[in-house]
């Protein structure tokens, strides 16, 4: 199959890749770049575990073609923070017992980030959080501790923003 060159920025790093036209963003991240923090499951945009941020917005990377990401910025869970430098969302998930098997968690955290970034300075209600994450399936937690973690992270992120502004 004919391959074409794709320039792609992932977690702030520029990549030039030879891609096949049918490759999804998920395939490129996991198989070509070895970024397996982005998870694979249904491959039809139903479960949400493959969620990444494309120019800051949450997308199901299993149904986005890599070719659609030309010149755009992708953020994966690896770029959000590592185990030694956790983002407030990652820390809140770990501290609130929101992580069990953890397979949906990268997608869940990035969905939450996209949502919180769209509402800067706000503390979302439980119902708003439920609405925001309803596209990502979690079979382990019943969502309760995930929701609590997102609410706690929102408070911390707002505090950090205020401190930064002062």
């Amino acid at each position, binding site marked *: 199959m004919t391959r074409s060159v794709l320039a792609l920025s992932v977690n702030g790093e520029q990549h030039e890749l030879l891609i096949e036209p049918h490759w999804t963003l998920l395939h490129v991240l996991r198989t070509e770049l070895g970024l397996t923090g982005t998870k694979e499951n249904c491959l039809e945009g139903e479960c949400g575990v493959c969620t990444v941020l494309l120019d800051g917005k949450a997308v199901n990377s299993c149904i986005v073609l890599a070719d659609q990401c030309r010149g755009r910025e992708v953020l994966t869970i690896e770029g959000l923070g590592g185990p030694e430098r956790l983002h407030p969302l990652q820390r809140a998930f770990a501290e609130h017992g929101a992580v069990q098997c*953890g397979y949906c968690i990268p997608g869940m955290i990035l969905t939450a980030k996209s949502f919180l970034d769209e509402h800067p300075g706000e503390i979302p209600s439980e119902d708003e959080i439920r*609405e925001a994450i309803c596209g990502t399936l979690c079979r382990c*937690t019943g969502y309760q*501790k995930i929701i609590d973690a997102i609410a706690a992270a929102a408070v911390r992120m707002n505090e950090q923003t205020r401190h930064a502004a002062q």
Partner: protein
Amino acid sequence: MLRNEHPVTGRRLPRLDGAAKASGRHVYGADFALPGMLYGKILRSRVPRARLVRIDTHRAAALPGVRAVITAADVPKVRYGNAVKDLTVFATDQIRFVGHPLAAVAATTPEIAEQALAMIEVELEPLEPVYDPERALETDAPLLHPDWQSYAVLPFIARQGNVAGRSRIRHGDVDAAFARAYRVYENRFTTPLQHAGYTEPRAATAAWDGNATLTVWSNAQLPFEVQAMLSDILQLPSSQIRVVVPGIGGGFGGKLRIGVEHFAALLARACGRPVKIITTSEEELIAAHPRQPAIITLKTGVARDGKILARDGRVLVDCGAYAGSGPLVGAVALQVLAGPYRASNLRLESLAVYTNKVPSGSFRAPSGPMANLAVECQMDMIAEDLGIDPLELRLRNVVHEGDLGPAGEVLKSVSVEECLRRAADAIGWHDRRPAPGRGKGIACSWWMTTGGSSGVYLKLNADGSVSLTSGAVELGTGALTGAAQILAEELALDLEDIRIATVDTQNAPYDYGAQGSRTAFSVGNACRAAAEILRRQIFAVVAKHLEIPADEILLREKCVVARNHRLPLAEVARIAQLGAGGLIAHGTAISPPPAHDPGRVENHPLPAWNTPSFHAHAADLSVDRETGEITIHRYVVAQDVGYAINPTYIEGQIEGGVSQGLGQALSEEIVYEDGRVLNASLTDYKMPTSLDMPRVESILVECPSQHGPYGAKGVGEPPCIEPPATIANAIAAATGLWITSLPITAEKILLGLEGSEQKP
């Protein structure tokens, strides 16, 4: 025993793998890859029952990029399986379900492998299928396994034709008790196929070292069982098979039985390259190991005051085309069917029946929710008929300390009354119908802490930390963090000082596996035993080094304290490495089942339950009479956990278990029509989302057990048992309508309400 001055157990500590998982660094079975690996795909039957006449793989094998195509002709002619050895890797003479493996392909890309599958030619001769397990029991029904008598089975299994397993619990004189009963109630309940719903598909990567030794990296729940199955399938000694579980994205019992490991292994051997297989959503929904559909008939005779006199019940589990976990799942239903209730006369039978559908498995508390639906809905029906409050009826019948269980075993640490009262108090039981269309329901049950043995190795590391090597995988429940908390407490360490090793059958001690609510319990006990040995080893090293008697030495805050000396464990490790080859301790645990009366039980693998737990659920909901939709206002669980090793993750088990139970109650069903699954995608198979789940209020009851670490009981499975019955009872309280067939969809409610309104 010395305990830490600052205990590690009983605290809400973050799990050890939390940061790695939240940052995407934790490697799961589906993430694992090897250089040069190929991708495997499985050709699955599109017809439910047929004679396989011919299979031609020549065109597929010739496709560029294809490295191997294998069929039944290429694999050892053996039958394997768990309770009944009725399985073959590929269909041989007969196809028995849509999804039945016919061939497998390895290719350089998944797309080429998929393309090759379409080029395999299959010639079939359709045979008459059987989908209904009650039809399969009839004498003139087609026999799914004509050679059933030649299959090897576990010793307790009783079979006959399409019945893959039959178990019984019987005592007293049921007929005489029915004859003198004030009333006798008889009801029938049905429950559907439910997928375990783990978000990580089943995956395996296999590589051979020459032709002698196989390594499989998989997300199996039971690596030692997978190793044993691979040994049967490949006809290799088990020590030449190494199963490694890097990480597992949920299992819930759906990853207990062997998944795709054998296909990957056979393909890798055929093409001399590593092969990875990951299942698709469609394969998951047509050919995984879902919860059996069940038909439960229950007849109960009561006295005028509501006391249960006798029960006659039958659970029929539809195990699909192969026995899978069916015979065991059916048997375990009998204890749930007896309920946590006193009954002096019991006649209970389970049948696991073959049909031309997907072979099923052991989804969380395998038959608990089905049998509990029957018992607990019928309790409410009896209560209504006799004019007794449903809570009161339960309290008049529940078992108490020292009562006999269904197999005649003495029940200990019994807490069902406390669970019922606390759940009822929390939900506001005094006001059971607070508004029109609104009602509250309650249900209780009991469940085992599965036995089986555990071994662990501990190693004192050079930095003073301790490595914990176990054969039990961390499914996500937090059970190994719980075991590590116990270990840290025993060794005066912090939780962060424990390193949990990746499970590898080559070097891990045996464990019966991450199943049956037993991991924290059994591995925790093995950790206590191993810690005792490691302590003695440490004291011996220090006694020799300091010339102080061992009985004057203590462990305190990561140090060894002896008279006025204080040695950090890292220093002890250094001394032990210099002079004693380092320190390694092996601890084991086995929890023997209680004594029972063998005369009451026939063909039952678990006649008397180890360390049973007790629990009660209560819900407050409204039913919309226009749409049939329900809104759950509150959901309460009171569960006896014995001792809460880490309350956060116990709540997590309860919240997640309730979510799976509510899915089974309200929306989940693998729908079959003419042997085909109509909803084989996550678009059409509906699991609860964040919008469907109520907040779950957990009450942790701590009635200590005799055998668990610090009194703990099994926790993981029970929370999904009571939700269907609790919801059905609450709907009946709200509307007067009984729906005895799961899932209770809005359509069923609406049709039921319309029907009852039409009646005079």
